C-alpha cells in the first residue's frame, strides 16, 4: 500500500533549492522536529512553518500572502491545512511544526475552502490574463489552477476595484491597483526587506488598498529598490520593461556592476535582450535584495551614446577618425613604441579602474609591468580607499575588511564613521537597518546628519558625533582615551593577539591629557560627554563593529585614521569573530578586487612589494620578462610629471580621471601635455575628450570575469549578450600587448583567473568552475580554506600579532580663513553612481538631475542666499557654480555637495592636498567661499564650449570612406 511505503521510512528532506519559494523564511534552530505531512515523515529545524516543511518534503501548499523572503502574515487563508487531533483549519504559513503531528494538506474540505477563497479574489480581479504582462508569471493565476477554480459565482456588476487608475510615476515600474489582491507582501517587503516603510494598507475590509502614503510612488518616500515589485504575486507591481517586452525566456546569474556591495542578480533575457534584472535570492551579499541602480539602471549598456567603433586622432583638437580594431591597436602600439624610444619607459604608464573585472585589471597591470617595462600602474582606489590598504596592512596584516556583511546581524553596537550606507551601500544598509530594528545600538561619526541619524523609520542613532570635517584623528584619539583611561581595554585579547610593546606605547599616547575628549572638544565641535558616552557604549556594549567609508580615507590623515580605527577595534577586542570587525565600505564594485590584482605601483597581485625578491622572481618566471624592483608612479605623480612634460603616454582603462580626480584644471593640463592618451571606455567620458586613441569597451553584460566586493567576495560576471564593440575588454588589452610584441594567449577570462590563482596564495583555490559551484567565494581561498574565508583573523592576525600605531592628530593645511571661511565636503547619493557616466544615462536622473549644494540656513542668510539660488563656490584651486539648498543637515560653516555630473565641476574646487601615506586626495575638506551669482563660472563656460566641440568630434567622426587628406 502506498501509505505504508511512505510512513515506514523517514524521508530525507530534499536539498534546499533557491529557485523554489518555501513560503516562509528558513529556521536556523539547531534542534530538529519530526512530523508527518501527507504520509511523508519529515524532520526539520524547530520553528519551521508547516508550509516550509511541506515544501521541503516535496508538497506545495497553495499560498498567496506568504513568500519566503518575508515573515508570515496569515491573511489570505489559502494555505489552510488539517492537523490530526486539532480543531479547525490552521494556516500552514503561520503555524510552526510540532513533534509527531500528522498534517494533511489536501482534503476535500480544504479544497472547498480554498476554492471559496479564490473565488472571492477572482471576482474582484480583471480576467484579462491572456493580455496581462504577468501572464505565466502570476501566482494568482497559478493558485486558481492549483485549487481547481472553474467558476465564479459573483458577477462583476457589484462594487469592485477594476476601474482604479494606474500609478506610472516611477520610471521603472507600474502600480496597477485593479489587479491588487491586498496580500500586503509589498508593504511587508518595503518594511522588512528594504526598511523604508513607504507603503501601507489603507482602509479596512473591502475598502482596503495599498498606498504610498497618499502620494504617487515618485512623490512618496519610495527609493525604488524594487523589493515590493519582487514580492508582488500579481501584475499589480510590474517592471515596465516586462510590460513592454513580455516575459523573459531564460536567465543568467551575474553580478551588479555598481557599488561595493556586489549584489548577485539574475539577468532575465529574451534572446540577447535583457528584460529585467532580478536580485538573486541565493546571492551571498544581497540575499534577494537590490537597490535602484542594480535592479533598474542597466539601460546604459544599450544607450545611444555608447561608442562601439575604435577611433584615433593625432591631436585633441582634431575630429575623431573611425578605424578598424587592427588599425587602432597598431596605431596605439606604434605611439607607445615611439614614446618609449624618445622619452623612455618611465614616461609611460597605465591606470585601471574599480569598474574593471579582476581579470581586466590583472592583464592591464601585467601589460604595464611586463611589456611597458615599468611599475607605473595605478588604479582609482588611489583616490578612494588606498589608505585602507595601507592602514590595515600595517596594523593587522591584510588590506581588506575583516567580515562578511551577514556579520552585522550579530553586532550589538555599530559605529559608522564617514560613510552613508543608505545612499552609498543601500542593500547592505537594509540589512544593517534590520539589525538596528532588532535593537542594536548605533553611533554615527559624520559632519553631516546622514539619513541613519534620524531620518530612517524605526532607526535612530544613539549618538551622532557631528565632528568638523578634517578632525577624524582627533576623534579616534578621544574615543581611545576614554577606553584606555576608564579601564575598558580588553586586556586579555590584547595580550594574546597583539604586540604588547606597541600597545603600551599607544596606550600611553592616547592616555595623555591632550587626547582627552575635554581637551579636543573645541577642535572637534563635539561635546566631551557625548564622546565619553559613545566610547563607553562601543567598548562595553557587546559585539562592536566599525563600518567606515570615504569620510575616513579621503583626508590628509586618511591612513592615520584607518590605523586609529584598527587600534580601537583591537583594544576593545572587536576583531576575529562574527558581529565585530573593521569594515571598509568600498565605493565601487571592484575596489577590493582591483587592489588585490596588483594595480598599485608598488605591489604585485596579492599585495607583494615590487622590491620583494621572491615575488619578483615568481612573476619574472611566469611572465618571462624582466621586471623592475622600483615602485612606479601614482596617479597624482603621473599627472604632476605630465604637466611638466615628463610623462607622455597613458593607457587608461575604464577610469575617468578628468572628472573623478581632484583639481580638475591640473588634471586636464596634464592630459593636454601628453602625446598619447589611450582611453578604453563605454562612453566618450571626460578623459576621452583629451584622448588620441579610443578603444570602445564592453559593458558588464557583455563580458565574463569576476568582481570582488567589500567583504572579499569574488562573484562571477557572466556574458549574457555579445559585446557591441566586438570584444571583451581583456581581449583589447591582450591585442595591444601582442602588437607590442608580447603574446597574452588566453582563450577565455577563466584562464586569466587560473593564472591569478597560480600566482597568488590568497586566490589559490579560486576558479570559474568553483564559482559556478559555490556561487561566490570570499578570499582567502586556498588549501586550508577551500570554500573561502568569511571572517578573517580568527585565531591570529594575518600579520601574526596585531600592531598598534600611534596616531597623532595633525590638522590639515587646508584651513579656513577670512577669504575661504567655509569647509566644503563631498559625498554621494543613492540614485547616481560615481562620475555618473552610467547612471546619468538611465532614468535615474529623474531623482537627481544635477548636483546641489547643501548649506546651513545661517550661512545662507549671511550671504543672502535663498533656496534654489545659484551660488559661486571658490577655493584655492578654482571656482564653480551650483544651485543651493538650505538644510540643517549640514552644520554651520560646512557645505556639502555630490560630484555625479561633470558640468558641476565639483572637482574644479577640490585641491591637491592628499593623504600622507598614499596620496589619496583630501576630497572631504576644501576651504571655500560662497557668494550668490547669476551666471556660470569661467571654468564651466569653457567646459561647455570644449565638451560640445569634443562631442561633435565624436558624432561627426570621419569614417574611413569620407576620410579627408590630412
Amino acid at each position, binding site marked *: 500500500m502506498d501509505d505504508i511505503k511512505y510512513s515506514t521510512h523517514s524521508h530525507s528532506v530534499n536539498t534546499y533549492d533557491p529557485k523554489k519559494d518555501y513560503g516562509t523564511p528558513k529556521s536556523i534552530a539547531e534542534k530538529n522536529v519530526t512530523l508527518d505531512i501527507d504520509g511523508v515523515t519529515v524532520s526539520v529545524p524547530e520553528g519551521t512553518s508547516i508550509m516550509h516543511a511541506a515544501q521541503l518534503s516535496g508538497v506545495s501548499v497553495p499560498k498567496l500572502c506568504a513568500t519566503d523572503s518575508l515573515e508570515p502574515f496569515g491573511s489570505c487563508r489559502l494555505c489552510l491545512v488539517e492537523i490530526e487531533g486539532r480543531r479547525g483549519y490552521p494556516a500552514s504559513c503561520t503555524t510552526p511544526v510540532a513533534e509527531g503531528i500528522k498534517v494533511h494538506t489536501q482534503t476535500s474540505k480544504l479544497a472547498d475552502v480554498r476554492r471559496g477563497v479564490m473565488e472571492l479574489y477572482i471576482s474582484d480581479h480583471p480576467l484579462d490574463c491572456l493580455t496581462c504582462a504577468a501572464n505565466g508569471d502570476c501566482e494568482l493565476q497559478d493558485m486558481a489552477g492549483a485549487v481547481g477554480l472553474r467558476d465564479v459565482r459573483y458577477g462583476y456588476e457589484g462594487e469592485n476595484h477594476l476601474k482604479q487608475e494606474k500609478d506610472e510615476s516611477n520610471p521603472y515600474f507600474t502600480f496597477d491597483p485593479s489587479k491588487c489582491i491586498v496580500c500586503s507582501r509589498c508593504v511587508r517587503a518595503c518594511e522588512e526587506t528594504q526598511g523604508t516603510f513607504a507603503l501601507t494598507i489603507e482602509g479596512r475590509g473591502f475598502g482596503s488598498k495599498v498606498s504610498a502614503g497618499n502620494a504617487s510612488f515618485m512623490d512618496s518616500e519610495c527609493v525604488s529598490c524594487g523589493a515590493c515589485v519582487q514580492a508582488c504575486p500579481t501584475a499589480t507591481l510590474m517592471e515596465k520593461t516586462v510590460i513592454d517586452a513580455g516575459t523573459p525566456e531564460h536567465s543568467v546569474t551575474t553580478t551588479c556592476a555598481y557599488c561595493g556591495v556586489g549584489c548577485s542578480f539574475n539577468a532575465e533575457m529574451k534572446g540577447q535582450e535583457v528584460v529585467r534584472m532580478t536580485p538573486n535570492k541565493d546571492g551571498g551579499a544581497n540575499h534577494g535584495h537590490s537597490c535602484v541602480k542594480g535592479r533598474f539602471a542597466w539601460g546604459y549598456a544599450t544607450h545611444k551614446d555608447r561608442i562601439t567603433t575604435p577611433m584615433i586622432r593625432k591631436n585633441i583638437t582634431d575630429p575623431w577618425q573611425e578605424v578598424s580594431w587592427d588599425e587602432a591597436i597598431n596605431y596605439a602600439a606604434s605611439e607607445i613604441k615611439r614614446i618609449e624610444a624618445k622619452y623612455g619607459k618611465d614616461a609611460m604608464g597605465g591606470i585601471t579602474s574599480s569598474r574593471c573585472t579582476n581579470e581586466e585589471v590583472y592583464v592591464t597591470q601585467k601589460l604595464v609591468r611586463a611589456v611597458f617595462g615599468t611599475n607605473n600602474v595605478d588604479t582609482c582606489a588611489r583616490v578612494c580607499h588606498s589608505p585602507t590598504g595601507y592602514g590595515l596592512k600595517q596594523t593587522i596584516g591584510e588590506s581588506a575588511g575583516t567580515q562578511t556583511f551577514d556579520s552585522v546581524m550579530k553586532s550589538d553596537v555599530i559605529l559608522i564613521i564617514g560613510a552613508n550606507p543608505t545612499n552609498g551601500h543601500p542593500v547592505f544598509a537594509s540589512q544593517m537597518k534590520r539589525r538596528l530594528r532588532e535593537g542594536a545600538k548605533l553611533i554615527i561619526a559624520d559632519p553631516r546628519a546622514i539619513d541613519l541619524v534620524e531620518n530612517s523609520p524605526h532607526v535612530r542613532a544613539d549618538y551622532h558625533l557631528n565632528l568638523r570635517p578634517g578632525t577624524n584623528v582627533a576623534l579616534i584619539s578621544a574615543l581611545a582615551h576614554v577606553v584606555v583611561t576608564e579601564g575598558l581595554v580588553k586586556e586579555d585579547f590584547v595580550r594574546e593577539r597583539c604586540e604588547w610593546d606597541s600597545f603600551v606605547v599607544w596606550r600611553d*599616547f592616547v592616555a595623555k591629557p591632550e587626547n582627552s575628549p575635554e581637551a579636543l572638544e573645541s577642535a572637534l565641535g563635539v561635546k566631551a560627554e557625548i564622546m565619553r558616552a559613545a566610547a563607553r557604549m562601543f567598548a562595553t556594549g557587546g559585539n562592536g563593529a566599525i563600518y567606515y567609508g570615504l569620510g575616513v580615507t579621503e583626508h590628509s590623515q586618511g591612513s592615520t585614521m584607518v590605523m586609529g580605527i584598527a587600534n580601537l577595534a583591537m583594544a576593545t577586542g572587536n576583531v576575529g569573530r562574527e558581529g565585530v570587525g573593521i569594515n571598509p565600505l568600498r565605493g565601487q564594485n571592484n575596489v577590493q578586487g582591483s587592489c588585490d590584482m596588483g594595480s598599485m605601483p608598488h605591489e604585485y597581485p596579492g599585495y607583494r612589494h615590487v*622590491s620583494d625578491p621572491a615575488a619578483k622572481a615568481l612573476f619574472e618566471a611566469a611572465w618571462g620578462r624582466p621586471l623592475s624592483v622600483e615602485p612606479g*608612479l601614482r596617479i597624482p*605623480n603621473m599627472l*604632476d610629471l605630465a604637466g611638466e612634460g615628463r610623462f607622455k603616454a597613458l593607457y587608461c582603462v575604464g577610469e575617468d580621471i578628468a572628472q573623478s580626480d581632484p583639481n580638475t584644471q591640473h588634471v586636464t593640463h596634464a592630459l593636454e601635455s601628453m602625446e598619447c592618451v589611450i582611453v578604453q571606455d563605454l562612453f566618450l567620458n571626460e578623459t576621452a575628450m583629451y584622448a588620441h586613441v579610443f578603444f570602445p569597451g564592453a559593458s558588464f553584460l557583455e563580458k565574463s570575469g569576476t568582481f570582488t566586493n567589500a567583504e572579499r567576495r569574488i562573484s562571477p560576471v557572466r556574458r549574457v549578450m555579445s559585446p557591441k564593440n566586438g570584444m571583451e575588454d581583456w581581449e583589447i588589452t591582450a591585442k595591444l600587448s601582442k602588437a607590442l610584441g608580447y603574446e597574452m594567449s588566453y582563450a577565455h577570462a577563466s584562464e586569466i583567473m587560473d593564472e591569478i590563482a597560480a600566482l597568488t596564495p590568497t586566490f589559490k583555490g579560486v576558479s570559474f568552475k568553483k564559482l559556478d559551484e559555490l556561487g561566490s567565494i570570499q578570499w582567502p581561498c586556498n588549501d586550508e580554506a577551500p570554500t573561502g574565508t568569511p571572517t578573517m583573523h580568527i585565531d591570529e592576525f594575518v600579520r601574526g600579532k596585531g600592531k598598534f600605531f600611534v596616531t597623532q592628530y595633525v590638522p590639515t593645511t587646508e584651513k579656513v580663513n577670512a577669504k575661504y571661511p567655509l569647509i566644503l565636503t563631498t559625498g554621494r547619493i543613492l540614485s547616481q553612481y560615481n562620475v555618473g557616466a552610467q547612471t546619468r544615462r538611465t532614468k535615474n536622473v529623474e531623482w537627481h538631475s544635477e548636483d546641489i549644494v547643501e548649506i546651513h540656513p545661517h550661512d545662507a542668510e549671511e550671504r543672502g542666499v535663498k533656496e534654489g539660488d545659484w551660488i559661486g563656490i571658490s577655493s584655492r584651486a578654482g571656482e564653480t557654480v551650483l544651485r543651493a539648498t538650505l538644510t540643517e543637515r549640514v552644520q554651520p560653516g560646512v557645505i556639502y555637495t555630490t560630484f555625479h555630473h561633470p558640468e558641476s565641476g565639483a572637482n574644479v574646487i577640490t585641491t591637491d592636498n592628499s593623504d600622507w*601615506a598614499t*596620496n589619496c586626495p583630501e576630497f572631504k575638506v576644501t576651504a571655500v567661499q560662497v557668494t550668490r551669482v547669476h551666471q556660470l563660472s569661467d571654468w564651466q563656460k569653457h567646459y561647455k564650449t570644449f565638451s560640445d566641440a569634443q562631442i561633435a568630434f565624436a558624432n561627426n567622426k570621419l569614417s574611413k570612406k569620407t576620410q579627408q587628406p590630412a
Partner: protein
Amino acid sequence: MQTETLIKMANQIGDFFEAEPDKAQAQKDIANHLNRFWTKDMRNQIAKYAKEKQGAGLHAQVISAISAYLKA
C-alpha cells in the same frame, strides 16, 4: 616633479612618524616609507635637494632619515 610637492609630501610623512618615541626608529620608518612608495627619481630629487639646500623647509627628522637611510 616640483620640489615643493616632494617637500610637502616628505614632511607629511615626517609628521606621522613624529609620534614615534624612538628617534632612530622614526628615521628608519620615514626612509622605509620613501623607499617603498616613491619612485627612484623622486627619491633622488629629494636627496639632491636635501644635500644642496641643507634640507631647507624639510623637517629635521626627514633630513636625517634621507641622509642616513634613503636608497639611491
